[in-house]
């Protein structure tokens, strides 16, 4: 079967600084991949490249076998199929929760207000936020805001979700409610790529964990193998630091 997403020697630099150094990875449909690695290893940039928020310098990104990274290609149809959730939620502060969710379905997919709102309320109910539809993002806790952001992304019915450190800005006691949502998505067979610092969560939820170091994937393996008996020396060092910090 064709991979859902295929990264082929993806290379990206910001000026002199090389951020991605030839990333190769095939992701099958319904697969969950976790990217781990220290800050600056390129996890977030990689996700932003897949969402075409950053252009790549070399290589190719294939979605269902079609190269989406060609320069000059209209990025909007691609972004409709690939949802992205950000570390800082990026909700629109001037809109109610419900309007945050219905904006893109209405303006991009052309749904009527009624249809978009039905879809939005359904998602809010799914994530236990049905009574928050008419509040503004600033009036919600971080965990609630992040769940709204996930709902907003899902309202476009994407085929792939990119989750960029979605729990990093949250108070520890709010992380759980967001991770529950991600578990539910996995249960529904969503293809997901996530960058995370939550090692236990990466271990629990992902089919494969990839360790990034200086813009390269040094090791990609099922979680029990990568966390249990990492092959690469750098991976071992990184995991040792995480264990020393009490995070695993």
């Amino acid at each position, binding site marked *: 079967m064709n991979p859902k997403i295929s990264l082929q020697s993806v290379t990206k630099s910001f000026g002199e600084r090389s951020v991605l150094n030839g990333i190769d990875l095939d992701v099958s449909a319904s697969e969950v991949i976790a990217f781990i690695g220290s800050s600056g290893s390129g996890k977030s940039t990689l996700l*932003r490249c897949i*969402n075409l*928020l950053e252009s790549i310098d070399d290589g190719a990104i294939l979605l269902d076998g079609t190269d989406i990274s060609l320069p000059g290609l209209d*990025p*909007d*149809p691609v*972004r*409709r199929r690939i*949802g*992205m959730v*950000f570390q*800082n*939620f*990026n*909700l*629109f*502060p*001037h809109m109610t929760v419900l309007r945050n969710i219905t*904006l*893109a379905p209405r*303006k*991009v997919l052309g749904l009527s207000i009624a249809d978009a709102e039905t879809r939005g309320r359904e998602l809010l109910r799914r994530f236990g936020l049905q009574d928050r539809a008419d509040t503004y993002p600033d009036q919600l806790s971080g965990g609630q805001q992040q769940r709204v*952001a996930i709902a*907003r*992304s899902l309202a*476009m019915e994407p085929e792939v979700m990119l989750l960029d450190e979605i729990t990093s800005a949250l108070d520890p006691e709010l992380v759980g409610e967001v991770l529950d949502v991600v578990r539910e998505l996995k249960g529904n067979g969503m293809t997901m790529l996530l960058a995370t610092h939550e090692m236990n969560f990466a271990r629990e939820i992902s089919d494969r964990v990839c360790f990034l170091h200086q813009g390269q994937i040094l090791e990609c393996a099922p979680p029990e193998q990568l966390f249990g008996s990492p092959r690469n020396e750098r991976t071992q060092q990184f995991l040792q630091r995480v264990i020393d910090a009490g995070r695993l």
Partner: protein
Amino acid sequence: MIALTSTLVVIGLLVTLIPRTPGWYKVKRSFFNGNVFSDTFPRLLDAFVKDVQIFLWCAPCILVWGMVLAVCRSVRTPALFPLRLFSAAYTDIFRGVPVILTILLIGFGVPGLGMDRPWNSPYLWGSVALVLTYSSYVAEVFRAGIESVHESQRAGARSLGLSSGQTLRFVVIPQAVRRVVPPLMNDFVSLQKDVALVSLIGPIEILRQAGVDKSKYANFTPYVGAALIFLALTIPETRFVDHLMARERRRTSGTVIK
């Protein structure tokens, strides 16, 4: 209490000291003449209606044209670079020339083309000059607002598949406008005053009327009357802007530090 006492002391000193100056008697007669004031004030008030009218039709034009300029300045597509260039040049020119010069140049220059009525009206070209100048100020205010919206908002919108135009329209501009309402109001308070400059090319509005009455009575009191009329409008406007700014501060920062 301290504030009240010090204010009273200052006012008391002014009231007792100014009349002791040698020229006070003459100044009082030619600037604060009660009879002249009551004769001319109603005419000034009538003429002021013109100022308000000019203000009212200029303000919406300025808002629309200013926003168009700001959006042109903010486009990022390389193909549309000429728009950015135009907008930048426009604001540079009209912000750099004193309003009064723009009014004189346009107000005397364009009617010189010899067009028929109503296309030679000083009201029209005076207003056009005000719109041209003020839209360049307002465009800068809007642009600052647009640039103050964090990049992550664009990322959030674009990642949902919204086009750059939709992102600007539904996500960036609504937030930008909210933020710039107070500084925008400041510009409109000064527009209210600068409308008087249109008198230089002919229309009988309040400043012109005061000038006519000044000559008629050989007395400066009409100018004082005109000033009072302006203040009656601009002081409430300014207080309202202060109120908006304070509210915005409370809303964005949560607390106000004295």
